[in-house]
């Protein structure tokens, strides 16, 4: 993949105050017990109130973050839209499912069914800007957003110019409760997520969108490549894949200024990342992000937003650091995202 995806606009709704342009993780908000709720902005600043009334929360978060990215990119339309979401519009799915079960399949209305379709966010974003172009929704766990990134790179290679990509995930009170009952959560607040001393995850949610372009314009960073690894059997396999990927990008691990680790806090799943951490700590600054956004299928979108922001600011917030390497400049960032030890992805961003 030769094209670079220059990031010319971003929007991020997350459990942190990321919609405030001046905020940069000076202080951070911890989980609400065992999960992170997103801080939702005033949606009517981003979406027509008539449309807003009918939208579920995932659609509102997605459409707003998309709007923010488009505004920053100063664009009215794009050549393609790719969204990633692991569970789609879960609130509407749950609403329709409970209506079926509670009323024995009677007295149903179609609204929540219509909105439950996984590609609703991408479709609504297209509908709002009347975008008739290519529109895909990826729904593959920890590869959902990452598949959108890969597709954007493919599309830029094919000659498309401006592309909107994003990741969206929402949770509901009932979904959180079911996962709590299933003992999926980490409620330990004494140990940082990267120490491998905790079990379970802190579930998160949010939405991050990006306008990426084949032309640099005002971009300060670009996504240069992405690589996937499915169900590796050892940390060596992860390391080999990273080396192979960085080699294809004409660089090497030692040259990476910052490695962003997707530690979930569940030591059952973080093993390989824990083994990698000391290997990269000598040369690179290291940091993590799931204590900011929580763990969910499209946490990679948050990480990508964070990486772009770090390159723009040329600063690594102390609240996310693992080691304390000083770097005079941050020219390259490798994101190592992992979902439940199943879906590993490696994303390279460079200053431009």
């Amino acid at each position, binding site marked *: *993949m030769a094209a670079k995806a220059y990031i010319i606009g971003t929007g991020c709704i997350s459990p942190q105050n990321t919609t405030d342009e001046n905020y940069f993780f000076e202080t951070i908000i911890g989980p609400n017990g065992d999960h992170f709720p997103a801080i939702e902005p005033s949606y009517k600043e981003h979406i027509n109130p008539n449309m807003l009334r009918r939208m579920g929360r995932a659609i509102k978060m997605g459409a707003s973050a998309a709007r923010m990215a488009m505004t920053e990119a100063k664009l009215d339309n794009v050549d393609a*839209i790719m969204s990633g979401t*692991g*569970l*789609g519009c879960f609130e509407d*799915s749950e609403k*329709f*499912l*409970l209506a*079926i*079960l509670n009323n*024995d*399949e*009677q007295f*149903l*209305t*179609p609204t929540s*069914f*219509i*909105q*439950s*379709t*996984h*590609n*609703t966010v*991408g*479709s*609504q974003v*297209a*509908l709002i800007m*009347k*975008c*008739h*172009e*290519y*529109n*895909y*929704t*990826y*729904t*593959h*766990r920890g*590869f*959902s957003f990452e*598949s959108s990134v890969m*597709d954007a790179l*493919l599309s830029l*290679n*094919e000659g498309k110019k401006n592309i909107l990509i994003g990741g969206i995930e929402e949770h509901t009170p*009932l979904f959180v409760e*079911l*996962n709590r*009952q*299933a003992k999926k959560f980490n409620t330990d607040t004494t140990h940082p997520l990267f120490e491998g001393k905790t079990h379970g995850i802190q579930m998160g949610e949010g939405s991050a969108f990006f306008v990426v372009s084949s032309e640099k314009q005002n971009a300060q960073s670009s996504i240069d490549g992405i690589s*996937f690894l*499915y*169900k590796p059997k050892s940390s060596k396999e992860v390391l080999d894949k990273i080396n192979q990927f960085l080699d294809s990008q004409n660089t090497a691990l030692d040259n990476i200024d910052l490695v962003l680790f997707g530690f979930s806090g569940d030591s059952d799943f973080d093993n390989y990342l824990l083994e990698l951490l000391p290997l990269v700590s000598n040369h690179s600054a290291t940091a993590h992000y799931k204590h900011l956004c929580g763990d969910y*299928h499209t946490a990679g979108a948050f990480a990508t937003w964070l990486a772009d922001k770090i390159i723009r600011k040329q600063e690594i917030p102390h609240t996310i650091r693992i080691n304390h390497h000083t770097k005079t400049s941050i020219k390259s960032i490798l994101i190592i995202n992992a979902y439940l030890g*199943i*879906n590993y992805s490696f994303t390279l961003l460079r200053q431009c």
Partner: protein
Amino acid sequence: MISAIGNNVQEAYANLSNAKSGIGKIHHLNTRYKDEFVAGEIKLSNNDLMDYIRFKSPALNRTSMLGIAAASEALKHSGIDLNDGMRTGLISSTTVAGMCKTELFYKEMVDKSLHLEVLDAHDCGESTEEIADYLGVKDFVTTISTACSSAANAVMLGSRMIKQGMLDRVIVGGVDALSKFTFNGFNTLMILDKEWCKPFDENRRGLNLGEAGAFIVIESEASLKRRNGKALATVAGYANANDAYHQTASSPDGFGATMAIQQALKMSGLSPAQIDYINMHGTGTPNNDQSESKATVNIFGNNVPKFSSTKAYTGHTLAPAAGVEAVISILSILNDKIFPNLNFTTPIAEFGLSPVTQVTSHRMNHVLSNSFGFGGNCSSLIFSRV
């Protein structure tokens, strides 16, 4: 491919050639409306399916089992050895995913905290990973969910990844099991016909739902040559466009569909006159068939090629529909045969278009296959003779 017209491609071909529909009384889906509606149900129960794929795992849901049945047939048919050092991917698609099982247990999950492990298999990625693990595909996996055009988009992504040298071959398609969730969803939208659907008929009343797993294997020319393989057909063109008209309805002017067909033609380098047959999306809903007819006329004018919708055989299987129809389109090319549009009697007055209604021999070099979905998603694929 596994669908209401057979558990494999051979059975499907026999039924297609005998104009024998798979749509009938509902046996397995436990809905209160089972005696009121017909559907394109696969004849195997979940237990039968486990026997059929020779893989018994309590974690598997119907969607995953249908996917395993279809994808393993496709891979076996291709003759590809996954351990030959070449890169192989799996791009699946689904809309129902684990909902077919979640809906059976959700009450007990919520009320009694039982069966919580079912939640782990609820998402769309689950069935893809079950298929990948069953087959041993490791190099790339992803899942697309763009409603009823999903599998067409899987074909398209797979083709693009091969073209750009990211994979040597890729198994692409989709899978959806029938579920109460989708059944009731379509029922509340009032687009289900209680009897056999009649695509492109003036008096059509709606669609019949179906279920299927359907995959094709796409391989690069270099990889095919290396192993002395033989292709069944080529993917000559593809395009995806968005109607951007309404969340569930297609535009009356067929804007998105026209754009998808136009771009697919452009990519293939073919003129409209070179298309020998169109396998239509043709769900049988008043809205789809009107919009698709309009798009067809927009592109082909007075020279509309022979066409049919095969939805009256299989029902509308949602995500895998385009996979089912890719298989049918390839069967059409291999056998120079058009499989008819069942249950048709009266052309839509606005267009006067009549589909092929009998099994017809017809020399076929290029077949266009359309698939459209909620969210305005419009995809067109062109398959060509090798």
